[in-house]
Structures are given as structure tokens and as C-alpha cells.
């Protein structure tokens, strides 16, 4: 679950990580009151969307007087922003953060993630603040420093020193202290709030030697939301695809993609492989949909309904390898969904595994029109043939 910048900064404040003074507004007539309440000019106007890359897409503006502020806010609120992470449709800006502009001496990068190979949280620090860190990592890996956090000890002061004292030139002793304190805070909140990502880019040192988190990204581990109720309430579903929202409600793993072949599969790995097979057959998947190993009839029905709601879908492939999910359950779910909605596109079914005969029988005896594929390759070929 992603937090907005302003939400992450509220968390930062609680953990003693300095952030710029700012106010959140959701309509442009709040702009002048907000800018009066915050030291400035200059102010920085920042669109609150989950996707990264908003800076290049006009989602961050530096303004030097109240008029510019209003103009900047109006250019964002209610408008769509398209970044490399939003897809071509872009996302609508519902809220804007107005912050004091600070006098930056130095921009650094700081983040924390779980290092899968080391099986520990890892803090990542770099002199190359404000830049695309993936690019820095690819081009100049020697500029990226890492410290792992052993669960037996937790974050220790030396972890911070190992990072900060590699800066060249070394900042003032006060700034060193400030950096160590921010790192400690990031590590504490990362553990306490079950984060999968905390990122500050840039983390700045001001001309008067203060260390401030100018930006803030936080992602909470979805698996841990059951014990992070305070975070759960921060969820802002407005940017989510409506079909994905609906799927979430029914515990279905559904991701909308750009193609036109709807797919329903049991199991994440098989679902990915099915998308791959569709693509190799020359077509494009409209979605990833894993109904899960333990899906019941209702989940199948809902999954099938979601696919049918997607107007771009020109053909549907059902690929089920019955294991825990029995083929007869699948068949009943599909038939139930078809009874509610008219199916206006070709349906290709490939069933295998537990109770496959019963499943095929149920489908055959229904009103449903569908094509049968004997194996996965054939299924993909038939599907691709339908839309080419």
C-alpha cells in the first residue's frame, strides 16, 4: 500500500525526521491562506499522486509569489498527470501540498528496503540525491552505499556512521548528527510500520546545516496491514483502477494491462505464464488474474464478471490446472457469471487436473458458447486467432 507524500511526511514528523513546513489543500481557493501560513516565498507546490516521476510531468512547481501559487495549484488540481509510472491514461490530482522553499546546499539520497538476498532490511545512501537512483546504481554503483540491519541487534549507530562518513566532502559535525538521526528514524519507522519501502529523494542539507527530508515515499507491506490499522486508514483508492478495486474486495489478484485478451487462471505463476503464452502467440493480455488456489464458486463468478466489465476485452481465455481448485467449481462459477451478463466475446477454455471431466460436463450442459483447447499452446493460438 502506497502512502502519499504528505502522509509519509506526517509519519516522518512522528519519528523525528525533519520535513519542510507545509499544508495540504484540495481546492485552489485554499491556496492563499495556506501560503500565508507557511514561510515563503518561495513555496513549492506538489501534486499528491502515488506514481513517481511527477517532477518531469509538471507535478512539482517552485513559485515566487501568491499569484504564481494559485496558478500552479490550478494547473494541477483535478487535472491528469502522466508519468512513466502512471500508464498513458495518467492519474487525476486530488490534493496538492504547499511547502516552504528551502535553501539547499546539498542533495543526498536515502532509502530502506528489504534486501531479498541478504534477508534483512537494508539502508541505501548516496551522494547522488535528486537523481534517478536506478540510473545511478546502473552507471556508478560505487556511489551507492548500503548497510544491512541484523534483526539480532537492530539498527546500530555504527551502521549510520558507515554510511555518513563515506560522504566526500564530509558535511559539518551538526549535519553528520542530523543525518545519523534521520537514518535512525527511518529504520525505526520501517520496522514499526512494516514498510517495504521508505525513500527520501532528495534528503537535503540546507545552507544553515539542517538535514531535511524534501520528499517522502512510503510503501507498507500489504501482508502486514492486518496489524497496521493506523496505516490502513491512509489508503487512498482514488488513483486505483476501478476493476482492480473491485477485485481487491473479493481477494482476487487482478492487474489491468493494456491488451485485449482477458485471462482467468488459478495460481500466480501459471497466470504469468499464460500471459506470456498469449503474447508469444502474437496477442496482448488485457489483464493478469489469479483466482488463487483456494477459489470458491463466488470468487470465480466475480473474477469472470470483472473481465467482462473491461470493454477492451475481445476474447477470454480460461486456463485452469485443477489442484485444490477443482475444475467443477470453476465451471459452475463461470456458468453463474454468464447467466448474469451476456458474453459478447469468444470464450476459450482449457481445463486440466482435478475433476476435469465433471468440469467439462458442466460447461457442455450449459448455454455457454465456448471453444475447447486441448493444451496451453493450442489455447493461446485459438485466442490470438480470434482477435487478429
Amino acid at each position, binding site marked *: 500500500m502506497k502512502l502519499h507524500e504528505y502522509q509519509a511526511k506526517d509519519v516522518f514528523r512522528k519519528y523525528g525526521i525533519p520535513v519542510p513546513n507545509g499544508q495540504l489543500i484540495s481546492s485552489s481557493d485554499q491556496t492563499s491562506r495556506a501560503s500565508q501560513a507557511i514561510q515563503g516565498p518561495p513555496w513549492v507546490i506538489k501534486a499528491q499522486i502515488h506514481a513517481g516521476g511527477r517532477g518531469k510531468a509538471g507535478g512539482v512547481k517552485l513559485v515566487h509569489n501568491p499569484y504564481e501559487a494559485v496558478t500552479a495549484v490550478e494547473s494541477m488540481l483535478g487535472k491528469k498527470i502522466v508519468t512513466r509510472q502512471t500508464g498513458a491514461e495518467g492519474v487525476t490530482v486530488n490534493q496538492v501540498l504547499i511547502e516552504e522553499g528551502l535553501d539547499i546546499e546539498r542533495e543526498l539520497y536515502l532509502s530502506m528496503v528489504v534486501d531479498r*538476498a541478504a*534477508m*534483512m532490511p537494508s539502508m541505501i545512501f548516496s551522494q547522488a540525491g535528486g537523481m534517478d537512483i*536506478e540510473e545511478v546504481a546502473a552507471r556508478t554503483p560505487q556511489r551507492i552505499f548500503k548497510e544491512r540491519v541484523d534483526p539480532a541487534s537492530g539498527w546500530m549507530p555504527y551502521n549510520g556512521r558507515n554510511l555518513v562518513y563515506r560522504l566526500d566532502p564530509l558535511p559539518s559535525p551538526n549535519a553528520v548528527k542530523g543525518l545519523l538521526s534521520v537514518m535512525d528514524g527511518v529504520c525505526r519507522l520501517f520496522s514499526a510500520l512494516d514498510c517495504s519501502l521508505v525513500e527520501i529523494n532528495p534528503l537535503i542539507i540546507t545552507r544553515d546545516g539542517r538535514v531535511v527530508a524534501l520528499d517522502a515515499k512510503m510503501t507498507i507491506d500489504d501482508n502486514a496491514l492486518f496489524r497496521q490499522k493506523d496505516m490502513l486508514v491512509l489508503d487512498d483508492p482514488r488513483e486505483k483502477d476501478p476493476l482492480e478495486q473491485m477485485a481487491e474486495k473479493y481477494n482476487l489478484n487482478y492487474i489491468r494491462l493494456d491488451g485485449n485478451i482477458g485471462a482467468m487462471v488459478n*495460481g500466480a505463476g*501459471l497466470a504469468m*505464464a499464460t500471459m*506470456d503464452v498469449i503474447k508469444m502467440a502474437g496477442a496482448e493480455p488485457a489483464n493478469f488474474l489469479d483466482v488463487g488456489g*483456494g477459489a470458491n464458486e463466488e470468487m470465480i463468478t466475480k473474477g469472470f464478471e470483472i473481465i467482462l466489465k473491461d470493454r477492451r476485452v475481445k476474447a477470454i481465455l480460461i486456463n485452469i490446472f485443477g489442484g485444490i481448485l477443482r475444475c467443477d467449481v470453476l465451471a459452475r462459477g463461470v456458468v453463474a457469471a454468464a447467466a448474469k451478463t451476456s458474453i459478447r466475446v469468444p470464450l476459450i477454455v482449457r481445463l486440466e487436473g482435478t475433476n476435469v471431466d465433471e468440469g467439462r460436463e458442466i460447461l457442455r450442459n450449459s448455454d455457454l458458447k465456448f471453444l475447447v483447447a486441448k493444451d496451453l499452446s493450442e489455447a493461446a493460438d485459438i485466442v490470438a486467432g480470434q482477435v487478429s
Partner: protein
Amino acid sequence: MSILLDGESRIVVQGITGREGAFHARQMIAYGTKVVAGVTPGKGGQEFEGLPVFNTVGMAVSEKRADVSCIFVPPPFAADAIMEAASAGIKLIVCITEGIPVLDMVRVMAFLKGLDTVLIGPNCPGIISPGKAKVGIMPGNIHREGGTGVISRSGTLTYEVVDQLTRAGLGQSTCIGIGGDPIVGSSFIDLLTRFKEDPQTKGVILIGEIGGTAEEEAAEYIKADFPKPVIAFIAGQSAPPGRRMGHAGAIISGGQGKAQNKIDALKKAGIAVQLNLGTIGKAALEVMK
């Protein structure tokens, strides 16, 4: 022989009185697996299909000499269940549970450090040594005993592959789903090392997917130190970056975890990579011969 699990293994099922635990415990027993006890805290003294239910794994070990545990405990309690099994001296722990917080797994792996315990999973279908024993949720009937080892990050995708293997006449020594989470107890390499020493295993199928770098590391290991034939498949070639594809671990992020990186690394290591899932059975037959 087979690896990790054989007909002598004595299984305790943690969470045996739950819906999933009960269903799969029966399936395991039906397959011929030696399930010796169940554990559900607070239900000690009850029976399950004639087997004793204990309050703790420790009692299942001391009373029934259990040495393998299969965990069907809900995510908030699963890390605790793994540590309980390990501290009770269980040598092989198979955790089926999906949805364990990743920081819980960080703690589990630190806890297991230095212990003589193998963890398979979590978020996995389990492990089966066909004809001997099955500890997990995979359909037993698609498997046949034979010489092919299977290691996979996936569930149904593995069943698809195993089904094709069996139809192609390639039986399996042991099939292991290592799990779809970012942190899992056993890696490809951990298991390849065991397949290397297993005389029954003539070759190995490695089924990877997007996310992390486990396949790249496996490729290096195989090139350097694994003498048996290997065929690999990677799911998620068409997956978009930044999205979690069902499995918590199946995500391309920070420029890492792309399918193409993995395919390239495997090919570079001289490993046969099968791109078309539909014909992996036949392809395996070629490579294994």
C-alpha cells in the same frame, strides 16, 4: 532416494483442526504419507482421523517422534509456528501459509541461522517425493516416481509442468515449491546442492519467475558446480514493472527481477531455457536424455 522427504518421514501438521489443514492432512494421509500427529494450541487431547492433536510441536516430537512439520497456520501466527517447529527440533518445516509479513520472515531467517533445520516456503505448495510421501497441497495423482527433480517458485505452474513431465514419461525424484514470497527458507541453490548428491535425480527442472535475483544466482551455481542436466522456465516475460503479480515476491522493481535478465543469465550459464510453457514436457525429455 529422494531429497529431504521419504517414506520414513514422520509428519506433524500445525493447524490440523483448521479447514485447510484438515483437508490437506487427509489428502497427505490418502497419498500414503506418514502423518503422525497434529498441533493446535488449546485443542490438545482431541483426535484427528485417529491421530493425536497436541498443544505444542514439542509434544508431537517427544510423543510421536515427528521430524517434519507442515504448517497451515494463518499469516499472523505463521512465523511463530515456524520458530516453534524449529525450536522443537523439527528438521524439515514446510510452510504453506500465504501472506506472512516480510519482516516476520526476516526474523524467522535470523532465528534459523545456525540451526540444523530446513524451511521450505512459505507461500508454497510444499514438497513431494512421488511414491513415498507428500507434504503440501499439490495434487498427488499427477506425479510419478522417477529421476527428475523439480524446483519452482510457483504452485499450479509446477503442476502444469509436472503433468507434462509425467505424460512425457519423465517421473520425478522430488518436487519442491520453494514459495512465491520475497524471502523464502530454501533457495534454488540450497536444493540444487541436495539434488547434486541424490543418486535418484538424473536432472532438474527449474521454474523461476520475475522478482529478485534467485535465478541469476542459481545460474552461476549451476555453471560452476552442478553436473546434471538442467532445463529452466521463467514466468512473467510480459509482466509490467512495479506491479506485484499475485506472489508477493513476483515484482520487478528497482531495475531488478526482469524475466529477460534471468533468461539471459541462465542461457549464459549454458542452461537450456524453455520459452514455450506448452511444450516444456517434450523439451525436458530431450534435455534429460
